């Protein structure tokens, strides 16, 4: 556990610096920030720094220079706000949900497959985005989405996103694929060398394919599958399995497979393609004509947090151009704030990750937890939930 402690910052530190961040506070009335806590009420004002902040996040999102002295966006935050940062990384969205339930953490970077569970469980608070100065800069296509807004209530600050692309070895796969059929209906052509993401959420990739190719199934959203639709996706994946050489869950392992030629076509993240290219592997990525699944992360505030002022300061800070650029580049993702693109060290970063490309982003179905109440809004059927997807995934792999 990466814990930070700098005792010379007393907890009672003055909050002058904090006020600098609240310039845009559209405070209505005199509601003090602290009273907003309990009932999930929306905060109306950012008050004084509480002096500390406990963060739960993906590894790589909260760097204070201890991993790499050159990578540090936490220290400037601490200096600006007097909020002492404590950081706990998590490995999976499920671990994140479990840890967040303890109530020990003030903020969390939740991916779409975790955020709905947190909102449903009452573990996170609605967020008053008016208080966040940098929120207005965030790409519009990341705002008010199913994974960060429920019933019109906003639950956090978008942070970064990426797509699950189709990667192929340009020297071994001909012609260049433009459709997911390369890993489904035409997988035979590269039998034994197809790769797929090893997680139940990959079922959504099959559902997306069926959505376009078997419209009679009536799939409107790959994360809202009733039993019949799930069965169809499972069948497709079982057929695919015969041609899969390996399922990957670790992007480095996947890159290795492509380098050796054990895998020649399959899903990837842009960061994987970048590593592979840097190593001299002849790979290309494509956003197939059907679109793709992807992920979009949101910073959320814990409902039991006692440091909500610091939490808001962090939400605002992490989407500031400087911090967002640093994180996006270090982690390998598209930043949420377009102003970050001018501040990345690699000037081509945003282009590589298609950051501002709304058309590109609109083709992405961001990971969303499948729940019983269909996320596509259907009420006449019960949808299959994530634990059913997990059982199905076990069955698919056989």
């Amino acid at each position, binding site marked *: 556990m990466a814990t930070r402690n700098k005792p010379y910052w007393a907890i009672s530190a003055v909050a002058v610096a904090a006020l600098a961040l609240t310039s845009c506070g559209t405070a209505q009335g005199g509601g003090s920030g602290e009273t907003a806590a309990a009932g999930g009420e929306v905060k109306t004002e950012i008050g004084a720094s509480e002096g500390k902040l406990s963060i739960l996040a993906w590894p790589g999102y909260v760097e204070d220079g201890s991993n790499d002295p050159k990578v540090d966006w936490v220290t400037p935050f601490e200096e600006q706000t007097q909020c002492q940062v404590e950081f706990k990384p998590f*490995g*999976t969205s*499920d*671990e994140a*949900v*479990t840890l967040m*339930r303890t109530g020990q953490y003030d903020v969390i970077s939740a991916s779409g497959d975790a955020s709905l*569970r947190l909102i*449903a*469980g009452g573990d996170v608070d609605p967020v008053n985005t008016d208080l966040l100065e940098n929120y207005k800069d965030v790409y519009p296509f990341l705002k008010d989405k199913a994974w960060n807004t429920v019933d019109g209530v906003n639950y956090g600050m978008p942070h970064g996103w990426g797509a699950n692309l189709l990667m192929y070895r340009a020297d071994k796969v001909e012609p260049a694929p433009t459709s997911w059929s390369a890993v489904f209906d035409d997988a035979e052509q590269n039998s*034994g060398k197809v790769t797929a993401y090893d*997680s*139940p959420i990959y079922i959504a990739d099959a559902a997306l394919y069926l959505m376009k190719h078997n419209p009679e199934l009536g799939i409107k959203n790959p994360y809202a599958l009733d039993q019949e639709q799930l069965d169809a996706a499972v069948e497709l994946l079982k057929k695919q*399995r015969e041609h*899969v*050489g*390996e*399922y990957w*869950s670790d992007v480095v*392992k996947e890159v*290795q*497979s492509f380098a*050796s*030629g*054990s895998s020649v076509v399959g899903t990837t993240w842009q960061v994987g393609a970048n590593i592979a290219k840097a190593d001299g592997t002849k790979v290309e990525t494509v956003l197939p004509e059907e679109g793709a699944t992807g992920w979009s992360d949101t910073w959320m505030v814990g409902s039991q947090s006692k440091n909500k002022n610091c939490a808001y300061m962090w939400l605002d800070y992490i989407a500031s151009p400087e911090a967002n650029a640093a994180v996006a580049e270090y982690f390998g993702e598209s930043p949420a704030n377009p102003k970050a693109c001018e501040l990345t060290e690699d000037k081509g970063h945003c282009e590589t990750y298609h950051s501002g490309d709304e058309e590109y982003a609109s083709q992405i179905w961001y990971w969303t937890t499948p*729940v*019983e109440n269909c996320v596509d809004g259907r009420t006449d059927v019960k949808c299959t*939930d*994530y*634990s*059913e*997807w*997990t*059982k199905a*995934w*076990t*069955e698919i*792999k*056989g």
Partner: protein
Amino acid sequence: MAMQTTTAPGPAPAGGPERKPVPPRKQGISALLHRSPRLRLAGLLTAPAAWLILVYIAALAALLITALWTVDTFTGKVSTTWTFDNIRTVLTTSVYQVITLRTIYIAVAVTVIDMVIALPIAFFIAKVATARWQKLLVIAVLMPLWASYLVKAYAWRNVLAEGGLLEWLGRPIGLDSPGYSETAVILTLAYIWLPYMILPIHAGFERVPNSMLEASGDLGAKPWTTMRLVMLPILVPSIIAGTIFTFSLSLGDYITAQIVGGTTQMLGTVVYANVGAANNLPLAAAVSLIPIVIIMIYLFVVRRTGALNNL
């Protein structure tokens, strides 16, 4: 401690003539322990028994109980309603039966391969090599245990990859690398667990007196006959001790299967997927009962051979 306090002289009485030498309290405890062997036994056994019951048996019981609970699929919280659903699912769904059989097959294959490789190596170390070489060879056998499991598994990943070492070596004789597959899992596990097989068998060979081998030769037995009729019966418990290691370790493995297994699922990977990804602890607990039952049956079968004394 107790011994020390009995011999330690109590504080010298300050010369009061009527004062009798009162033994210090601690001496009383040790005297009590001396008089009562039961109390002594209880004192000795409390700590290990507490460990066994609390940490070992209680953990297993907790596992069994967890398997009887369910997960609230909406919030992902474990709800403590009693149900046999998980165990029924695991027992009746064909995919779990297939995975169980595959896991057993892998564990048996690993065990057999290790046994075949370990017997001659252990024999050579214990009975053929000179004393100096014996030490060096034992160190050589132990050496891989010093390297991290992960490093070894990833090294095998490179060896087995397309264009890797195995393919390069096999090409002249027309052999293909198995790639990432079930066979790859067996090979890698057999490599990783080999020392656990060699060491008990080596210890077994050491116990066979040389004089017995000479006597067998003097009585006209050929080397193979001596091996079969004299050494093997003495060795059986050691070999079984080795198989318990390789078999049970393979049965629970999930890391190797993930690294070189390609699409291979084992019981361990299913448990991992349910704990790590689905947050479905009850189902994971139910699956993990399978290897526990299998290894218990195996231990029950081999308990009469004396193998358990060789662990």
